[in-house]
């Protein structure tokens, strides 16, 4: 289980963006989190990905509470969660070729020998052709770059995937291809998914259940 319990988080302690939110994702389940822009759902996604320390509340990862965040979190906990962000341009180091971009997590965790094999295996599954792999981020389109970012997130075979507005910048066919790639990965590995977005139709068709941000915050306030 990926459980967010009574999370309060933000960038200023006096004015948290996320107040007392509880949400959980079961293994193999896909949960869509629906909310307008600027409501704090991305912050919640960052907390769930261990990238932002909440001011209050607990995050349970397979029953273990997370005590440390960002680089201080144990590597095994961090890499159990794959993250895809909204803007591929900002999520890709502009100096790395797409191959190196995708392979980065294997190199960072000291598993260089698996790079060639894993990249060759992942690239077709997200729809990247070999000639694209040699290019740098500025030489490919947003959609192609986002495919590489998805491949990077899947590289270490995470048990949880967090897609924060993964398709907001993309056209319909790329969106469909990326969602298909995520679903293919999930059916093969049984990974859980937290998809954050504002597109009700997309999340409704993609996920087992969708939760709306207002409901999430108002029921918590009522309890």
């Amino acid at each position, binding site marked *: 289980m990926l459980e967010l319990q009574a999370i309060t988080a933000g960038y200023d302690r006096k004015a948290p963006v996320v107040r007392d939110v509880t949400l959980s994702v079961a293994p193999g389940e896909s949960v869509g989190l629906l909310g307008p822009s600027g409501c704090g759902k991305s912050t919640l996604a960052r907390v769930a990905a261990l990238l932002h320390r909440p001011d209050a509340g607990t995050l349970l990862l397979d029953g273990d509470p997370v005590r440390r965040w960002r680089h201080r979190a144990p590597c095994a906990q961090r890499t159990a969660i794959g993250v895809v962000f909204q*803007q591929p341009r900002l999520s890709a180091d502009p100096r790395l070729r797409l191959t190196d971009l995708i392979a980065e997590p294997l190199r960072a965790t000291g598993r260089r020998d698996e790079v060639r094999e894993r990249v060759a295996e992942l690239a077709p599954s997200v729809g990247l052709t070999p000639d694209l792999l040699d290019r740098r981020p500025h030489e490919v389109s947003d959609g192609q770059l986002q495919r590489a970012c998805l491949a990077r997130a899947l590289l270490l075979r995470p048990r949880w995937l967090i897609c924060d507005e993964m398709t907001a910048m993309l056209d319909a066919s790329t969106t469909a291809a990326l969602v298909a790639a995520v679903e293919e990965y999930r059916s093969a590995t049984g990974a859980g998914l937290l998809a954050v977005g504002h597109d009700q139709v997309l999340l409704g068709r993609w996920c087992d259940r969708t939760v709306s941000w207002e409901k999430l915050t108002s029921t918590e306030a009522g309890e």
Partner: protein
Amino acid sequence: MSRRSTRTVRVRISAALVAATVLAVLLVPPLVQLDQQAVDLSSKLLSPSWSHPFGTDDLGRDLFLRCVYGLRVSLLVGAAAALTATVIGTAIGAIAGALGGRADRALMRLVDTFSSVPHLLLGIFIVAMFRPGVWPVIVSVALTHWLSTARIVRAEVLSLRARPYIDAAISGGASRWRVAVRHLLPAVLPQAALAAVLMVPHAMWHESALSFLGLGLPTHLASLGNLIQGARGSLLAGQWWPTLFPGLFIIVPTLAIAGLAGAWRERINPRRRSELML
């Protein structure tokens, strides 16, 4: 169009002058095979002529040779000091930006403390603690000139640190060290290298200033500052060449290096013009 072409001309002239400087410094001493220290009192204070293009000084030494040797020393000291200053500045700026929090505040207060003292005075204070020599001058210039690089690098690292690709790297299991070395440093290196090149002429001026004050390089070493310092007496007696030529040897190469670095700066960062100092 015409602005563009004047800029191209300026860059070409600068490049030619820098090339000439480097060639002179590398080629003249081995080719000429004359002793720049050779004293010849029978030909002292000769005005410029074909045999002595820059004239001779009060001990009859050929000024052209002295200037080339002086330029060599000044360039070496300037480059070494600029490089050291940039390495210190980049390291401190990167550490402050990457660690953040208390470490950042402490390091930035250190920068403020250093910059609250006029840097020439601080430099004089540092060289005055040692016997005259090449190293004290390099250390003194380096220790007073890492501040702006540290500030620039810190600001750059702070803005990079908040990018999602750093988050993605952390989520992919990268350690703090790996994030710094693989993602942050390569991004700030072009800025740091530019700061280093811009610092070379500045450091040369400081070397000359310190030597002119008699605190820098030992007087037997022909540096441009020493040459001007030694020529003060003859200037009052009406001999202009021992002052003019070393002076030109400071001004022309430093302007040329600064011109090249300025063009480079505009190329890598068209909008930021005034942040790096000359």
